[in-house]
């Protein structure tokens, strides 16, 4: 099977090379052949996928090429991270607590994708409650990296990265609280968008840390990422953090910042070298580069590991097993660890020393980021310090696992947009890449940079051989 972006799918549909039902056939065939090993799906929605595909085929017959104006995602096959509520379809957060929870309503993003013609094929595995950087914390088993099944796919949107990279769906949704979309995209060689905080609705998405959670997606290229974003973004009257915003493109000859603190100790040489190459490619397209500084970025993980568990302990307080789900004894190890940590930093006598202090250092980081964007139009940085690591490698050391997110934290703490782009691979075939961070609501510019980079570098996604 060749990799199909949304545009290629729609061209193929128009030219009658295949129908939407054929597409669902193909994706399901791949899932059934290979996902028993990859473990990216928790639930398959075969019947609803075929019903929707038939609807889409009918719309296409009636409207022809005008169909895509009204239904911009028509023909695309989507899978949702199992944190997204889907009416009538089991939603577990990959936790035993919600093992048999069936929601009575769908999230805003799910509704918008459905209305835009997207075909739901199933629900995806992830670290339980989105707690994790590797996909190993799911209560329903580890997801494997399709490029090498001994390696982690990155988390917490592990199933989303693995499923898109394996060709099990056209795109997948995810949530990014501290790299949970960008990391699996980076580790699986695909494109991940962490949108601006306040641009995409969190309504009907199981909350992790409310001041940091952003709802995005994983695709095979930047163009698809933009297309999906244009459907999911914007106010919905339900999530009060949303804002409709337009963004003014920088003039020709935009400048991209290289935040020096992202390139010091701890970064793997292979990761750094690939970013140098990417910078040369952008330079050849006329972009200027400039070293910038976010001195307090190095405290990002400490700030994050106070604020996030604090908000987690509060958000997970509602799971008492009375109205739905099982009781609190069903929480897995990592969820309990974070609830304990969050409860501690919020408890009497410790609040000022930990939580209040973290919120103040967050202010310092936010103002440093804002200052950088007075000088440059975007920033380039690694997504993670190293290429994908082996399953089990960090399992016994939570602190070491937490530090995987060090380069992700800046975007979440300051609420800005970030696009993770794949670029080449290691000698052993593990994906490499980088992230482009831009000011709040700069997504259109990041997509523009991403598409331009893909064009010049010739970086196009190809599926791994899953038979191995």
């Amino acid at each position: 099977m060749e990799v199909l972006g949304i545009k290629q799918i729609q061209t193929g549909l128009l030219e009658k090379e295949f129908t939407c039902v054929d597409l669902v056939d193909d994706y399901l065939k791949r899932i059934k052949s290979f996902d028993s090993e990859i473990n990216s799906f928790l639930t398959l929605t075969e019947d609803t996928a075929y019903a929707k595909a038939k609807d889409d085929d009918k719309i296409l017959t009636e409207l022809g090429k005008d169909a895509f104006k009204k239904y911009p995602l028509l023909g695309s096959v989507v899978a949702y991270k199992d944190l997204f509520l889907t009416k009538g379809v089991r939603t577990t957060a990959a936790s035993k607590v919600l093992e048999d929870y069936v929601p009575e309503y769908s999230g805003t993003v799910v509704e918008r994708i459905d209305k835009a013609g997207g075909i739901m094929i199933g629900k995806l595995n992830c670290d339980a409650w989105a707690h994790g950087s590797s996909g190993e914390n799911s209560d329903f088993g580890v997801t494997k990296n399709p490029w090498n099944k001994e390696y982690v796919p990155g988390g917490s949107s592990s199933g989303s990265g693995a499923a898109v990279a394996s060709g099990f769906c056209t795109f997948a949704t995810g949530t990014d609280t501290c790299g949970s979309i960008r990391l699996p995209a980076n580790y699986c060689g695909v494109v991940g968008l962490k949108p601006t905080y306040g641009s995409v609705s969190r309504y009907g998405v199981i909350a992790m840390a409310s001041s940091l959670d952003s709802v995005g997606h994983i695709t095979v290229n930047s163009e698809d990422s933009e297309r999906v974003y244009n459907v999911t973004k914007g106010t919905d009257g339900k999530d009060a953090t949303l804002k409709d915003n337009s963004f003014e493109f920088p003039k020709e000859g935009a400048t991209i910042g290289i935040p020096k603190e992202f390139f010091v100790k701890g970064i793997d040489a292979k990761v750094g070298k690939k970013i140098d190459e990417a910078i040369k490619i952008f330079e050849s397209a006329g972009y200027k580069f400039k070293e910038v500084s976010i001195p307090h970025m190095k405290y990002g993980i400490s700030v994050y590991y106070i604020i996030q568990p604090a908000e987690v302990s509060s958000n997970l307080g509602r799971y008492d097993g009375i109205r739905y789900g099982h009781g609190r004894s069903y929480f897995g190890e990592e969820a309990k660890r974070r609830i304990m940590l969050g409860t501690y930093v919020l408890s009497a006598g410790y609040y000022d020393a930990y939580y209040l202090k973290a919120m103040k250092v967050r202010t310092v980081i936010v103002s440093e980021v804002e200052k950088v964007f007075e000088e440059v139009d975007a920033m380039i940085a690694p997504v993670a310090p190293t290429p994908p690591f082996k399953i089990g490698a960090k399992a016994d050391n939570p602190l070491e696992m937490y530090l995987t997110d060090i380069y992700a934290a800046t975007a979440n703490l300051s609420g800005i947009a970030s696009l993770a782009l794949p670029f080449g691979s290691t000698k052993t075939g593990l994906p490499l890449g980088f992230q482009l961070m831009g000011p709040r609501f700069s997504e259109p510019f990041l997509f523009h940079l991403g598409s331009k980079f893909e064009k010049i570098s010739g970086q196009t996604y190809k599926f791994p051989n899953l038979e191995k």
Partner: protein
Amino acid sequence: MLMTKLTNSDIEHNADLAKLPLKKDEAEKYKTQLTQILNYIEELKQVDTEGVEPTSQTTGLTDVARNDEVKLLESLNEQQALSGSDNVYNSCFIAERLIRK
């Protein structure tokens, strides 16, 4: 810098606050791991935050309101609201008794 070292009673107290039933070996493990994490995040003490306002959100929005109207189609009916539990009686969820005489 003072080292934080969690005790068994810290762990028990927090588990109690969070209503988390912990097994004995879990409590022991969390004591070690959380001590390690807390000592890492102590590095924040090095940052001078004198006079800095805390950040609790990044949108800059304040007092967001929507029109006060009932949207019946978007509201759950009684049956839907109760659908997540088998433990219901007379249109109510059954919960554990809190007060005993």
